[in-house]
């Protein structure tokens, strides 16, 4: 199963605007795979959203999930 992760702000430049990750069933697994692929993520503060909600606990995801990585907000 493939998940396409969108990244925003500074994260899009440090990683890639779209990251494709295979074989992940939940956000903890996803985070592990992402930090393997982009070790810089280990030292960056970011939130994971699933279907536009910031998740605080491990959350199941599938190919239909809308997943994103968000660095700290700096609008306004």
């Amino acid at each position, binding site marked *: 199963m493939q998940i396409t992760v969108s990244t*925003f*702000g500074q994260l899009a430049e440090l990683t890639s605007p779209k990251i494709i990750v295979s074989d992940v069933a939940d956000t903890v697994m996803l985070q592990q795979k992402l930090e393997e692929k982009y070790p810089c993520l280990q030292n960056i503060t970011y939130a994971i959203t699933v279907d536009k909600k910031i998740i605080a606990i491990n959350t199941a995801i599938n190919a239909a999930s809308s997943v*994103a990585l968000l660095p700290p*907000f700096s*609008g*306004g």
Partner: protein
Amino acid sequence: MDGSSTKIKLLMTNKKYKQIFVWNAISASFIAENIQKHSSKTDIGAHSIFLGQVRSDIIDGKKVKAIEYSAYEEMALEKMHEIRESIFLKYPLTCMHVYHSLGTISAGEICFFVFTSATHRKEAIDACEEVVELIKTTLPVWGKELFEDST
């Protein structure tokens, strides 16, 4: 003021939620038009307006010439909808308008415009301040500094 400067290109409206994002800077004349439109609402006694302006800060010895704004638009519009609902539940506002720029906004230009109106001043002022705080802290929008030496 040049009449053409009042044209603000709103991004294509999301079907579900009210659009707040505009391309490029928010002009003074756009703000004036917004104010002018409220003169027919004679139950309004107070307007509170917040404007964010791009600063030319010095960061690591380099001067900011502009900020490039981007957003996770779908999430931001959904979040803004929640903010709007919570504010209207909490404060007896007549109306509320929010605009945020995307794209490259030069130092000195306005990138953020919050406008609340109510019968009495306290509601307009408190609601405006709360909306500004909520947007700054919960809306997925990012600003990237662009420097004068073009890096």
